[in-house]
């Protein structure tokens, strides 16, 4: 996120004004939950019977959602 701009230091007080606390515990995870729901819904709609998904990935959407517990896979 860098591109030199003419006056790099004059915005310091404005940056300070925009400081916010990091999100509370669980906030980011809760938002990701909504995304996982969309991911699972797309996989289901692309393959209502689930046969193709299992053939291609070896898993069904429920398996995808459970992988959240192991993000480092």
């Amino acid at each position, binding site marked *: 996120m860098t591109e030199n701009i003419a006056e790099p230091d004059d915005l*310091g007080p404005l940056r300070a004004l925009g400081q916010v606390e990091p999100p509370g515990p669980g906030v980011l995870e809760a938002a990701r939950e909504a995304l996982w729901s969309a991911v699972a819904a*797309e996989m289901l709609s692309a393959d209502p019977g689930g046969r193709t998904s299992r053939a291609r990935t070896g898993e069904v959407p429920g398996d995808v959602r459970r992988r959240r517990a192991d993000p480092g896979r």
Partner: protein
Amino acid sequence: METDSALIEQSVQGRADAFVEVVQRHEAAVHGFLARRAGQQAAGDLLGEVWVRAFAARGGYDPAHPGARPWLYGIARNVLRAYWRSRQDTNAAAEEAVDPWDDVIDRLDSAAQARELISALQALPVPERDVLLLVAWEQLSPAEAAAVLGIPPGTVRSRLHRARAALRPVLAAASRET
């Protein structure tokens, strides 16, 4: 490390869960973007909607941009505008008139040294303020801010120049006080 663009392409081509990795890279930044403008509570409520909209729109992602953060900020901006419109009298609010600055001010530092800066920000035309805050708060380059707003980089630069010129005396005074 794969680029955001490559992961988005994978998610379009059948590995939908690759998109989650993109989200994990940028979720703290996008939450900050929302929290600075709508507050912590609303940011938490709106973040999931940003991801769902981004996931639905990923097929239109421009692969010329390796990094997805400006694109995600653009989607977050649209989610915020819908949020603010939903809180306004719909008869009075044309889309382009959405300016929730009074709400933003309520959340900003009310210390004396910040008041003058807040007033100066409030006096800026909305398009100039949008550009200035993308550069100052989200630390975007003018080209990235242009991607967020969907306008030419040259327009961003001229708006940024005008905004900085308008705020220069106040910013200089604030710098001396800190």
